[in-house]
């Protein structure tokens, strides 16, 4: 390859980097999907799916955004899958040292629930069907209460 071509390619690369550097993370419409979930709490599965896709796409290239592993882990926890919750909390802690304190706390909460209620904490690969009652929308309320205080 001639040096001229290389120079041009380099210039194009630089132009691209400065022009397209608008996003350094894989968000997968995090804002829209979170808002939709708030608007319709039965949309939790869709929010979880969006986070899962963001992780799938971003993880190989290290472009998973701050908080995404944790948000996904927390949804897993709400759905009763403590094991998956712990795994994703740990990923968040490993990727972002700033999150370690909080994640360790939440890992302890999830481990505590597994000890107390091993049957309920078995991994549920498919999310349970969303229900309308407020009790099922946030089943974790008691479990988190204990240790965050």
């Amino acid at each position, binding site marked *: 390859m001639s040096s001229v071509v290389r120079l041009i390619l380099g210039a194009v690369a630089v132009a691209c980097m400065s022009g397209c*550097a608008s996003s350094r993370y894989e968000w997968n419409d995090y804002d*829209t999907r979170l808002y939709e979930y708030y608007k319709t709490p039965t949309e939790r599965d869709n929010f979880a799916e969006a986070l899962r896709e963001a992780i799938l796409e971003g993880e190989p290239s290290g472009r998973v955004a701050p908080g995404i592993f944790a948000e996904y882990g927390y949804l897993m926890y709400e759905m009763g899958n403590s094991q998956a919750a712990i795994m994703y909390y740990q990923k968040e802690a490993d990727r972002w040292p700033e999150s370690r304190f909080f994640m360790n706390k939440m890992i302890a909460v999830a481990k505590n629930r597994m000890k107390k209620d091993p049957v309920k904490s078995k991994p549920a690969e498919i999310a349970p069907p969303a229900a309308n009652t407020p009790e099922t929308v946030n089943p974790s309320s008691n479990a988190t209460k204990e240790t*965050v205080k």
Partner: protein
Amino acid sequence: MKRMLPALLLLCAVMLSGCAHRELSKQERFLAASPRSILIVPVVNNSIDITASDYMLSTITIPLAERGYYVFPVHMVKRVLEDDGLADSSLVHSAPASRLCALFGADAVMYITIERWDARYMVFNTSVTLVLRYEIRDGKTDEVIWKNREYMVYNSDGGGGGGLAGLVAKAVTAAVTRAAPNYMPLARQASANSVSSYPGRGIPPGPYAIDKK
């Protein structure tokens, strides 16, 4: 009234392109504290639109993280606070930043307050007015290290605004209808503006920023 129309249109165009009134930031204090992580607590909503806080909480993470900070997962944080008996966002806002930071291991707390969020639907024209207040307090000293006030008027009849503002205005025009308003483009723009627009007034780039301008 007819003679005033051009002047009004001009005013709309200026507002669309400029997004007026911004207080100066406290950059020196911010740089002295130089937080790496920011905890965004649930939004206080003093407007009449009940969906406004969900819009702002959903859209603030992306611009702040892209600015280079570790942003705590807003939804998870909201739930954990609720479980901890802090479901009332004004109660959370009145808690000292140092206490909140100690709970989550955060360096600083961002508080968002919606003061106005009004949509006026007229025959040929829809206008939306937003007034948002932002504050970041240091987790060690409880001091305000950054604040901003965002005032925006989007007018479907504005027409004059070019560039991004014009595009957003168009999106708002298309989306904001009486039946089911979709404020997502507007909320995104407000969040992005508050954090990163206009050098010297936005939040300085954080530790993970690529572009250290």
